[in-house]
């Protein structure tokens, strides 16, 4: 489930406009080795975990990997 918060998780100050850097950063989020893909992997892997610890941890880090979407 998705609940939007009208704030960033971490303070960001953009001092100058840099489209090349922006492209690089957006790839970190949505690219093939990005956080979005990692999130979905963790959230799928949690279904086959045998222990409580593993289920909870994959659930929580899978959630956490989705955070960068709020930087947009």
């Amino acid at each position, binding site marked *: 489930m998705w*609940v*939007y*918060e*009208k*704030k*960033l*998780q*971490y*303070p960001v100050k953009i001092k100058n406009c840099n489209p090349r850097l922006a492209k690089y950063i957006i790839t970190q989020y949505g690219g093939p080795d990005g956080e979005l893909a990692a999130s979905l992997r963790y959230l799928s892997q949690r279904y086959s975990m045998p222990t409580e*610890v593993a289920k*909870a*941890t994959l659930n*929580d*880090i899978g959630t*956490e990997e989705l955070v960068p979407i*709020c*930087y*947009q």
Partner: protein
Amino acid sequence: MKDAREKMLKEIQALEFMEIELNLYLNTHPYDQQAFMIFRNTVQQRKMLRDNYERMYGPLTACSSNSFPWPWIESPWPWEA
């Protein structure tokens, strides 16, 4: 005014960062009572601070919009600050 808002927001961000890290730590150390106490304190502090922030600067989530007219649509959004 803007500086005061940012300062308060930064404190909330710091508390929430602690909460996330303690959450992950407690997943693998569920019997660490000291960590649990720190977690509870952090949550309590964060709730208080968030309530104050929302009273002063407007809702942080759509469902905490409790004034009229609907305040959720007011700027700034995080990418505009």
